[in-house]
């Protein structure tokens, strides 16, 4: 049996981990409704599963205050679910049920917390971390496994508080050689997704018309890793790797970096505002001047 399986595991078997943005604060402001978007996505997932008998699809939902696994095509329990919905293939009955449950729970969690944020970002770092843990599990399962890749379908803008976590996930994906593709359907540019795709060797695309989303998904994001060398995909254009300074948040060409905590400043300061180290002095010099003063006090 093992030899038959190895013949089936040809170069183009892929595992697609889809990170679906379900942030209600984003979806309430778009022209396309979430259900129209979902119909494009489900048709795309069917197309991916149809390309090869051994292809696998895993869907993780990125919500506003939580993330969770929605669908795993390798689990056999999916087949037995009763689908009471008309028009949707029975294959995705469990996906739709779980997605509804997830969105209800997410909305409850939103009501529990007060949200003062003007930037309504979703938890991209959480779902990226979960996807990478799942992919690591696939790598552990032996040498016969599909080639994994991650596709982020994101519309919410970037949340700056997630920068460190997203960069950690990107570097870990680079080490595992897992490309992160990204399809951005929002209005502003997403620097996180552009950097992610550039660093890990994935494809980034921001389609302008959401009516044709299925077409973009199948022509750009459905190709597996082996076939990508034969297909012309959108090339990365103008990824801006400049940093922004911590004091004014503007992008700078040249700046000053603290050697202790690597914070970036645009002008010369005497003291680092992040780690508190005084520049030009070692910590011991600073401490000894304080203790000298203390020692003098009891003498006098």
């Amino acid at each position: 049996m093992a030899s038959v399986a190895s013949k089936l595991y040809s170069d183009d078997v892929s595992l697609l981990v889809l990170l679906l943005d379900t942030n209600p604060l984003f979806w309430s402001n778009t022209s396309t409704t979430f259900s129209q978007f979902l119909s494009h996505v489900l048709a795309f997932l069917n197309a991916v599963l149809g390309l090869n008998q051994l292809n696998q699809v895993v869907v993780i939902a990125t919500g506003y205050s939580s993330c969770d696994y929605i669908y795993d095509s390798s689990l056999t329990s999916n087949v037995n679910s009763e689908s009471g919905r008309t028009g949707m293939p029975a294959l995705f009955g469990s996906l739709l049920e779980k997605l509804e449950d997830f969105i209800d729970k997410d909305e409850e969690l939103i009501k529990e917390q007060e949200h003062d944020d003007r930037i309504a970002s979703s938890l991209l770092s959480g779902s990226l971390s979960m996807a990478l843990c799942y992919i690591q599990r696939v790598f552990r399962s032996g040498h016969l496994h599909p080639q994994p890749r991650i596709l982020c379908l994101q519309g919410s803008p970037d949340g700056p508080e997630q920068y460190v976590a997203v960069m950690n996930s990107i570097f870990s994906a680079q080490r595992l050689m897992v490309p992160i593709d990204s399809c951005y359907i929002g209005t502003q540019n997403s620097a996180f997704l552009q950097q992610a795709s550039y660093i890990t060797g994935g494809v980034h695309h921001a389609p302008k018309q959401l009516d044709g989303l299925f077409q973009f998904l199948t022509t750009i994001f459905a190709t597996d890793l082996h076939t990508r060398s034969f297909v012309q995909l959108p090339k990365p254009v103008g990824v801006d790797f400049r940093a922004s300074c911590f004091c004014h948040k503007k992008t700078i060409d040249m700046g000053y970096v603290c050697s202790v905590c690597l914070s970036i400043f645009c002008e010369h300061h005497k003291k680092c505002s992040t780690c508190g180290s005084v520049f030009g002095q070692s910590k011991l010099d600073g401490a000894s001047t304080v203790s000298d003063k203390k020692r003098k006090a009891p003498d006098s």
Partner: protein
Amino acid sequence: MSNQRKRPTGEREEDDEEDDAEGIGQWERAYVDDRSWEALQEDESGLLRPIDTSAIYHAQYRRRLRMLSAAAAGTRIQKGLIRYLYIVIDFSRAAAETDFRPSRMAIMAKHVEAFIREFFDQNPLSQIGLVSIKNGIAHTLTDLGGSPESHIQALMGKLEAAGDSSLQNALELVHEHLNQIPSYGHREVLILYSALSTSDPGDIMETIQKCKKSRLRCSVIGLSAEMFICKHLCQETGGLYSVAVDEVHLKDLLLEHAPPPPAIAEFAISNLIKMGFPQRAAEGSMAICSCHKEVKIGAGYTCPRCKARVCELPTECTICGLTLVSSPHLARSYHHLFPIAPFDEVPTLASSNDPRRKLGKSCFGCQQSLLGAGNKPGPCVTCRKCKHYFCLDCDIYIHESLHNCPGCESIHRPKSVSLMEE
């Protein structure tokens, strides 16, 4: 571990056997060299089975993590992030010994190559230089630089062993080189020592005191036996001394030096370093690059100060000397500054009021079932902050490679408690 060291008589026999190498088949080598019977153990009924390495591996990993976190104890230790490291490799006649297969030299070169790549991966702003000791004299193989390829090429180019080893000459040479670096850099030396003696032109104790005064942190990895002078050197300068017992151990010891070490308080002078963040050159633009002195079209970066073209980052502009980096390079070091706390082990309880039954039977990260044999709870770990459960493999992956807890990242945090502003 000591029973895996080869005794001198065993070595001589193997040399005879290797002379008629065609006579020894691969299956015989498994008994002669690898001692394959040591990988088996008996269970309760006396049947043989292979050693269950995953539990041992995880126990080792948890011990290591406990040692590291005991030192940190919840506070953030300042680490030396901008490191200038010299690797000193001993190519004296002791390096040609064959107790490491095929020879100590070849194994050292192979693992140093892997170490260099890992080092630049974890410390993108740091620089490495290579020094070799041959015939009692120390030679500089490469100067301090930030490109891994040039170091590896220089190392693999000359692999021959001869003569005596001299620790003092190596330390003097490295001391001379490292005196020229800026004050915010952390000076380190890593010595791979295979000889059992050192022939020095002067008093090595003076050299050690000189190194200590100039804040040079020396660490030694020995390949033969523990030596007093190496131990004294490491104790005086605050480095680590370890002796490798076999190839796998040598690799682990080397890779321990890749993450930044804790900074010693009196050594750490903080400074503001001027750095440039270049943009990519426009597609189709032609320029002569300053590193190769050739005409290049398109891809490359432009120094913001002097507008010279460089091919890759991070680097120092050859024309004006400005350090050029991109923001992902700085971001690679952030996980050293914001480490995640180790997860707690969950004791395996068999009671039916175990709250775990309700919380989840699968790992939060990879959805693998946490139940062991017979539906009893298997070993797992939990995060203190988000209280989610993870399997042992996810624990290792999260702490060694990912540096993010998926559970903590999946909780919405209001902006006021964010660790860092961007």
